[in-house]
């Protein structure tokens, strides 16, 4: 089901069928181009599939934004070992709530994407790793999978093509770190969700020691369109090297929060003011989390930009996972920084020292600081400790905790000043107002 009104500005590729009656059913899917891409892929050579993906300029939707065609080409298709397809449906990056819509409203599009991935790397088993909180989705996905089996779109000799594929869901149990691809692999093997050393990369040594094609739900869901209508058609929707559309999750202080499918490279200000209906209560824009809590925040004046991977990289932030969180002038950046750090401290797997100890130390400092216990020098220390984590932790979670914090410390010193010498948070009334909405 849909939780917000669509926007006329959307370009509906992945969400094309969302508004159709029982869009989640196989019949609806088949009646609307369903599985055309799969049959096409069966006729194509792996090289041709990779080529289309490369042309499409599809980049990983999980956050890292690595070119999918290239990534999928790393899987040794001819390895004697069994190969696996794994879908990252852990969707736990704060600010992000898109993958669930893709699974909820068009599960067969995802299944078709998975089958094409399987056909590409000669895999015959796939797992969708769905975060434990999404139990209702696991049920829905299981139903869709069952339907596909019944109708011969999964299992042995799919639609007489001679291609076999088995697909299962696998539930997580509450751990953000399990979204990190190698931690996900340990988790699916029944272990603690602790990341693995890279190299070897999952493409070569992944699940159960075998080559593994691992991508995000949105990434897989984009594949059928690319194969059906061609990479060029997909690429054309976005900006150079940033093909297609993106599920943008608008949230925070805006009038029309929601998930919208927009072309990659869509202007951020237009997202907020045209798609998102502008700032709530006519407040001024203060900051934006461009693509999930891991991204360095943008100041209002930095926001007149096209939302694509390269532009955001240029201004030292990230497009991330499409979780665009909008903050208004009444937001206390110290409190916001504290909440982010509280999250990372809670989610740190504990494997490496800087992340384990650093996130907790920073959480405690920011809590004290926001509570009025701040001392001169604390702000600098917070920045310094974050930099002591940055690039030195085992996996990117440490970076994810450090980057937004550093950006806040550097871009909003005045908010820290305002808390010094036991002064209470000057923004305290802000969120109450939110409740009166």
């Amino acid at each position, binding site marked *: 089901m849909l939780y917000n009104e669509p926007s006329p500005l959307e370009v509906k590729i992945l969400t094309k069928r969302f508004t159709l009656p029982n869009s989640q059913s196989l019949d609806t899917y088949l009646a609307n181009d369903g599985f055309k891409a799969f049959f096409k892929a069966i006729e194509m050579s792996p090289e041709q599939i990779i080529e289309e993906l490369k042309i499409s300029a599809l980049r990983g939707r999980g956050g890292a934004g690595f070119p999918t065609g290239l990534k999928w080409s790393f899987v040794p298709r001819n390895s004697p070992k069994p190969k696996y397809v794994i879908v990252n449906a852990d969707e736990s990056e704060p600010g992000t709530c898109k993958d669930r819509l893709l699974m909820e409203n068009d599960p067969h599009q995802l299944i078709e994407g998975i089958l094409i991935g399987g056909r590409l790397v000669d895999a015959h088993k796939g797992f969708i790793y769905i975060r434990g909180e999404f139990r209702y989705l696991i049920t829905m996905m299981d139903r869709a999978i069952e339907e596909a089996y019944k109708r011969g779109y999964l299992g042995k000799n799919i639609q007489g093509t001679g291609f076999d594929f088995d697909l299962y869901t696998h539930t997580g*149990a509450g751990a953000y770190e399990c979204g990190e691809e190698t931690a996900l692999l340990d988790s699916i093997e029944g272990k603690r969700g602790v990341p693995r050393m890279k190299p070897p990369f999952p493409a070569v040594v992944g699940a159960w020691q075998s080559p593994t094609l691992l991508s995000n739900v949105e990434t897989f869901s984009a594949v059928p369109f690319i194969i059906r209508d061609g990479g060029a058609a997909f690429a054309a929707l976005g900006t150079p090297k940033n093909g297609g559309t993106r599920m943008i999750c608008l949230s925070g*202080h805006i009038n029309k929060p929601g998930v919208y499918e927009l072309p990659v490279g869509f202007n951020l200000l237009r997202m907020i003011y045209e798609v998102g209906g502008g700032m709530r209560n006519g407040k001024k824009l203060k900051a934006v989390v461009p693509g999930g809590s891991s991204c360095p925040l943008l100041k209002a004046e930095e926001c007149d930009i096209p939302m694509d991977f390269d532009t955001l990289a240029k201004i030292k932030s990230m497009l991330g996972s499409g979780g665009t*969180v909008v903050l208004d002038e009444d937001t206390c950046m110290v409190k916001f920084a504290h909440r982010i750090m509280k999250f990372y401290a809670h989610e740190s797997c504990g494997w490496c020292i800087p992340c384990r100890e650093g996130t907790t130390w920073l959480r405690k400092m920011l809590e004290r600081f926001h509570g009025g216990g701040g001392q001169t020098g604390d702000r600098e220390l917070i920045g310094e400790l974050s930099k002591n984590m940055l690039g030195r932790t085992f996996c990117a979670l440490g970076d994810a905790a450090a980057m937004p914090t550093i950006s806040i410390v550097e871009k909003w010193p005045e908010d820290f000043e305002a808390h010094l010498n036991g002064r209470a948070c000057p923004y305290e009334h802000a969120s109450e107002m939110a409740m009166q909405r």
Partner: protein
Amino acid sequence: MTFSPELETKFAKMLESYPPGRTRSAVIPMLMYAQDEVGCISHELIEEVARRCKVTPLQVNEVVGFYSMLHRKPLGKYHVQVCTNISCLLTGGEELYEQAQKKLGIGNKEVTADGQFSLEEVECMGACSWAPAIQINYDFHHNMTAEKLDKLIDGLRKAQ
């Protein structure tokens, strides 16, 4: 230990689904589904899952404390989970959480005397665009307000 016939069939299928000899992969799902049925993860359950998945109890115990949805103590019949992460924070998640504490008269990870409700402040649950959001057991409730929360809880109280 044995579980309901439905669960037993589910587990049988589950153990089949992973590659040969990889039954350890079933540990976490098994714990999750078993917990839903028996209420919490006891030592007995750990030993049982270890036996079924052919791993040591330690290997099972190791994961229990790692995943925040696995609980060693029983939760309330209704487990109220309030997200206070960024998007919810900006839209009143904290106040919602305070309201829940008042309404239920319990704090974080506590259970009401009658065992009906438990409360937990949780991290982002993937409902950011429809924040503030809460989950009661596995059910999502979007765009929450204090009033909606009270109604929900009163409704559940009556339901018994």
